[in-house]
């Protein structure tokens, strides 16, 4: 596609519900990142994929967070038993090479509100 596509753009969940956020990266991009951005803050790294391999998941806040990219393209971030502190914008970014060689292309984000 022309850019990184994320869905849903907005999600309201009741505390305890499970949510799934989808990211469709730019076609051919090898690297995919998930970030969490709280209001008024910079993005915080969650996890990184190179193709289908999850090479770094050190930023995932708890075992309620799970990410996958089974075929090396579309990725899903799943949050189980959502809590109010999970409310944030979840950003997906992709790049065709390593991030140290150039820019990250971000999607518009999925804003999650947990009531």
């Amino acid at each position, binding site marked *: 596609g022309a850019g990184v596509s994320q869905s849903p753009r907005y999600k309201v969940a009741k505390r305890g519900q499970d949510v799934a956020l989808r990211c469709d990266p730019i076609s051919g991009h090898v690297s995919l990142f998930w970030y969490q951005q709280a209001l008024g803050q*910079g993005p*915080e790294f969650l996890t990184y994929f190179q193709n289908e391999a999850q090479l770094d998941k050190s930023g995932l806040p708890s075992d309620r967070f799970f990410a996958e990219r089974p075929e090396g393209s579309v990725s899903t971030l799943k949050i189980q038993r959502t809590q109010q502190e999970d409310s944030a914008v979840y950003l997906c970014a992709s790049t065709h090479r390593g*991030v*140290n060689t*150039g*820019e*990250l292309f*971000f999607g*518009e*984000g999925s804003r999650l509100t947990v009531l």
Partner: protein
Amino acid sequence: SQKIEQNSEALNIQEGKTATLTCNYTNYSPAYLQWYRQDPGRGPVFLLLIRENEKEKRKERLKVTFDTTLKQSLFHITASQPADSATYLCALSKAGNNRKLIWGLGTSLAVNP
């Protein structure tokens, strides 16, 4: 651990003037540093990348400097326009893991016509 400080106050300038935003870090010097622009409700958009062995980078009306002695990067927008109003984020590579970026909180810039 690495800490990043950007101008905490919002910056208000008059159209046509040069906007200067700062990004200070406290610990190791990163292999590279990136600047992004973020509009409300949108994802960050890449502007410039500068490496530790580069002192300055330019792109159209944008200029970035990188001073590893001062542990500081400056981001300049010359001949500013109201359309430049946005939040500007700096991001640094993490030591030993240049796939991971550490981000500042951002500086809000308002260019008044």
